[in-house]
């Protein structure tokens, strides 16, 4: 595979890079900066493009590193919350007075496979992701969207595995509840 002319990168991949970035840093100005930095780096590195990957995959790999650098920088301003700090929304999902059973029984999710084919489901999913607290969204995106291992995540965030697992657990519990209410809930999930 060969690279197309750098002048075309912005038109061909700019939107995809931006969407990738904004989902993960949740700040449109920062996402725009990251897209620009990515294209500048790509321009400088174009002679070293190995041709093993598609052009967009190559650009996204560069962007991913920029995002991780961004996380590293922001980590010093706002470290990962301590997992010993209780999270009220999560506490409310379990009934402490009743041996920490679920406060509300999780529902059976009807037709999950069909949901994955529906544009409306993905809008609901995106809204739920956007509703997560920033740190939980970050940890969830790096793990579930980007496939980072706990070990890699701990390096990026300078955090302990147990802390990362608690953050992931909280993110998943929140998403679960949000999807159940926003999609799989009353309407039956087979809209």
């Amino acid at each position, binding site marked *: 595979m060969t690279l197309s002319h*750098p*002048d075309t990168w*912005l038109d061909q991949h*700019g*939107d*995809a890079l*931006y*969407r*990738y970035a*904004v*989902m993960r840093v949740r700040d*449109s100005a920062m996402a*725009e900066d990251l*897209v*620009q930095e990515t*294209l*500048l780096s790509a*321009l400088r590195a174009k002679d070293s493009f190995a041709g093993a990957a598609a052009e*967009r995959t190559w650009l*996204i790999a560069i962007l991913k590193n920029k995002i991780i650098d961004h996380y590293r920088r922001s980590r010093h301003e706002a470290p990962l919350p301590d997992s010993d700090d209780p999270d009220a929304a999560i506490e409310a999902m*379990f009934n402490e007075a009743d*041996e*920490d*059973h*679920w406060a509300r*029984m*999780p*529902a*059976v*999710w009807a037709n*999950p496979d069909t*949901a*994955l084919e529906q544009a409306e489901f*993905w809008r609901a*999913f*995106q809204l739920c*992701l956007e509703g997560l607290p920033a740190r939980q969204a970050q940890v*969830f995106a790096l*793990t*579930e*969207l*980007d*496939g980072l*291992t*706990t070990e890699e995540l701990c390096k990026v965030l300078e955090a302990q*595995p147990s802390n*990362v*697992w*608690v953050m*992931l*657990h909280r993110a*998943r*519990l929140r*998403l*679960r509840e949000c*999807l*159940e209410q926003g999609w799989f809930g009353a309407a039956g999930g087979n809209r």
Partner: protein
Amino acid sequence: MLSCKEVSLLISRSYDARLTWRQRLAVRLHLLVCEACRRFTEQMRFLRRAGRAFADRQRDSASNGLSADARDHIRRTLRGQD
């Protein structure tokens, strides 16, 4: 016996790390008697699939791109590099 809260943490963790045999056993025993946590387990399996599928879709989707201003700004910056 572990609580639902503890079991849900272990089930979530099982997607990120290998549980010890003791933990796996405790989860399995709990799931035998707990319909709520069985449902939760199914939902976590779905969430993993959905996360991966979402990442693929987002990559190829056509909406919510750069604003015209941002695009112009980046274009000017890139030109300045030539």
